[in-house]
C-alpha cells in the first residue's frame, strides 16, 4: 500500500519571545496553510511505501532527505562537478514526489537536502513517526514505540523536536543577503522558546506545544529528536528516565535488555532518543537543556529549551 502526503515549502513568520517576528522557511501541510515550525508531524505505519509530493513556493530549489530511513537519495552536482544537493531538487514553482519505505518503526527527521546549512537553519525540517505493526490509534492497549517485546509500551507520548535559530541569519537570508556571523540566539522545543513552550497546541505557525502532561503512574514516552546544528544536553529534573532507543534502534529486544537509566541525555545534532518514565508524584518537573546557554531568549534567562512535565 502507499501513503500519499503533500507538503508545501513556503516563507513564513515565527514569533519568538523578545524578538518579535522572525522570517523563516518551512513546510506547510496544505496549499492554503501557513509554513510551520517544525513541519507537519507525519505519521505512517511500518512497511508502507510513502510518497511525499513537495510543492515549492520558494524562489530557489529545495529537496527532502529522510535520515535513518529506507530511501535512495540522488545527489545533484552542477555542470562543473561541484556538489549542489543531497537529493533531487524541486524547482521554484514546481513539484516533485519523494519516496521512501517506512521499513522500521521509530522517530525520524525529514529535512531539506539542498543548501542544508541555510535551509535547515531557516526551518525546512519536521518529524515523522513510523508506527509498529499492530499499532491502533484507537486502542491504547496496542500503543508501543517499537512493537511487542521492546519494552516500549506507553500511555502518553510526546514528540519534542529540538532546534535553534540565529535571528540575524534569518533576517539576512530572508532579504537575500549573505548570512552574518553564526551566533545562535534562540533555542527551540517544537519551534517554540520558553515560556511559549508551555502554551497548548494551536493552529498557527508554531502549532505544537512543548509541555508534557500526564497522570501520576502513567507510562510516558518522550521522543526527543535534534533537528538543530548543536548537541543538546536534555535533562529531566527529579525523574529517572530510561533510554529505550537511540536513533530509532530499540535497546530492548526479546532476550536482551540494553536500556539504561540517566537523568541527562546528550542528543547530538540529527540524533534521537526515545525515553520512558513512569510519572511520579503530582507536581511540575522541569525539562531543560543543561547547556544553560540554551535556556535563554537572546541574553535573557529563562527562555529557550525549557519546559515542564506537569504530573496531575
Amino acid at each position, binding site marked *: 500500500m502507499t501513503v500519499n502526503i503533500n507538503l508545501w515549502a513556503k516563507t513564513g513568520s515565527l514569533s519568538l519571545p523578545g524578538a518579535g517576528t522572525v522570517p523563516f522557511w518551512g513546510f506547510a501541510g496544505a496549499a492554503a496553510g501557513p509554513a510551520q515550525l517544525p513541519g507537519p508531524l507525519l505519521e505512517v505505519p511500518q512497511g508502507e511505501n510513502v510518497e511525499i509530493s513537495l510543492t515549492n513556493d520558494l524562489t530557489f530549489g529545495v529537496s527532502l532527505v529522510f535520515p535513518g530511513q529506507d530511501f535512495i537519495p540522488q545527489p545533484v552536482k552542477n555542470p562543473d562537478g561541484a556538489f549542489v544537493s543531497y537529493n533531487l531538487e524541486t524547482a521554484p514553482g514546481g513539484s516533485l514526489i519523494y519516496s521512501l519505505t517506512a521499513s522500521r518503526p521509530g522517530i525520524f527527521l525529514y529535512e531539506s537536502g539542498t543548501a542544508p546549512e541555510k535551509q535547515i537553519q531557516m526551518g525546512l525540517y519536521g518529524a515523522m513517526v513510523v508506527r509498529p505493526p499492530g499499532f491502533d490509534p484507537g486502542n491504547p492497549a496496542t500503543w508501543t514505540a517499537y512493537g511487542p517485546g521492546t519494552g516500549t509500551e506507553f500511555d502518553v507520548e510526546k514528540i519534542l523536536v529540538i532546534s535553534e535559530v540565529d535571528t540575524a541569519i534569518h533576517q539576512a537570508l530572508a532579504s537575500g543577503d549573505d548570512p552574518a556571523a553564526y551566533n545562535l540566539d534562540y533555542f527551540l522545543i517544537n519551534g517554540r522558546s520558553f515560556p511559549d513552550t508551555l502554551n497548548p497546541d494551536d493552529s498557527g505557525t508554531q502549532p505544537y506545544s512543548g509541555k508534557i502532561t500526564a497522570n501520576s503512574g502513567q507510562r510516558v514516552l518522550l521522543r526527543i529528536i535534534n533537528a538543530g546544528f548543536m548537541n543538546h544536553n536534555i535533562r529531566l*529534573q527529579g525523574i529517572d528516565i530510561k533510554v529505550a532507543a537511540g536513533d530509532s534502534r530499540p535497546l530492548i529486544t526479546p532476550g536482551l535488555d540494553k536500556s539504561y537509566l540517566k*537523568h541527562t541525555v546528550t542528543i547530538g545534532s540529527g540524533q534521537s532518543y526515545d525515553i520512558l518514565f513512569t510519572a511520579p508524584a503530582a507536581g511540575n518537573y522541569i525539562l531543560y537543556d543543561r547547556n544553560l546557554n540554551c535556556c535563554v531568549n537572546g541574553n535573557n534567562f529563562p527562555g529557550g529549551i525549557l519546559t515542564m512535565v506537569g504530573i496531575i
Partner: protein
Amino acid sequence: MTVNIELWATDGYMSTPDGNSIYIWGFSDAAGKKAQLPGPRIVVTQGDVVSITVNNILPEATSLLFPGQSGVLADTGTGPHLAQPQFDGSGNLVSLTDFADYPGNPDTNPASIKYTFTAGNPGTYLYESGTNPHKQVPMGLYGAIIVRPADYDPAIPTRKTAYGENTGTEFDREYLIVVSEIDPALHSAVEKGTEYKIREFKPRYWTMNGRCAPDTMFADGMGCLPNQPYGAMIMAEPGEKILIRYAGSGIENHPLHLHGNHTRIVAEDGRLLKNGATDLSYKRFTVLTGSGQTYDQIFTWSGLGYSPADPIPTTVPNLRNLGVGDAGWTLWSGSPYLGEKGDIPVGVTSFNGIGEYYFMLHSHEEMQITNWGEFPGGMMSMLAIFPAGTLGDTGIIE
C-alpha cells in the same frame, strides 16, 4: 542514618596559574569562610536521609538542584514540601526550584533553605544552583556528591565498591574530577555589577576540580590555592583497580582522554550499567563528559613488566633525541623502567620523584588545555603510576 550538612553560598576568589585572580560565587562549609571551587564534596551512604541547608549571603536568591535524586523536599521554615519550580505572581518562572532569598530582601522568604532527600542509589552526582543557573553555575555554585553503596566497607575488598558487592565495581583507589569552564568576563561583570551578555560567552580557562593545569597536579589542600582545595592528579600502583568519577559541571561537553589507557565506564549519572545479568559497561579511550552528567570508570594499569633485569627489547632513544629539553622541565625519570631514575639532559629539571610513570589526562579539544591562550594549561592532569608499595593511603575520598 540522617546526615545534616550546612553550606554557605558566598563569594571568593580562585587563582589561575598565569597569575589571574578571578571572582567566584560558590559554597563554603563554614560561616565566614570564602567560597571554594568546586563546592565541598559530600560523601554519604545509600539509604541515608540527607539534609542540606543552604545559608545565602549572596546579593541574589540561590538554590540547589540535585540531579539524579528524586523526591527532594524543600523547607524554608514552613515545613517540608516537594521542591518545585517557582513562579512569581505574574506566572513568570523565577527559579528552577525552591530557593533561599538574599539576606534583607524585605518582601519575601528567609535567606536559608533546607533540602532533604533519601540517597536512593549509589554513585556520583552533582549539586548545583537552580536560580539564574546560566550565571550562578558558571560562577561556581556547584559541587559533587558521592553516594556509597549500602554495603560499603573499605576494610573488605569485595565490599569496597562503587555500586555494591557483586556489581563488578571493586576499587583500590578512587578519584573525582569535576570539569568546568571559566569566562573571566562573566566573573568580572558580576564582581563589578556590570552587564554581561550570555551570547558572548567565551571561556578562557578550563578547570578540573576548579583548578587549571599545572595546578591540577598539586596535592589537595595547598596553601597557595586556599579556595581550590581539590587536586586532580590520579595516582596508583601497578595492578590496582582505579575508579575515576567524572562529573561535567560546566555547560560544554568535554572529550577527556587518558593517554595509553582505556577505561571501562561502569555507570552514568549514578546508575550502574547493568540489567540483571546483562553487563552494559563499555571501554573507552575518550570519554565525552556531557554537561550535567557523570561517568564512573574503573581500569587497571598493569604495564608490560620490563625491568633492568628483563630489558625492553628495543633500543632506547639517545638523550639528545628525546624532546624533553625545550620547556626546561620534565616529569620523565631518565629511565624507561618503573622505580628507576637515570640521566636527565643538562639544563633540564626533572620533577620525577622515585621513577614513577606519567600519562597525560586531558580534554582533546586542545584549545581547552591552555590558560588564556597559553599552552600548557587548562583541562589537563596526569595519571601517575608509582612503584608497588610506595603510595600508602593516597586516593581514598573521605
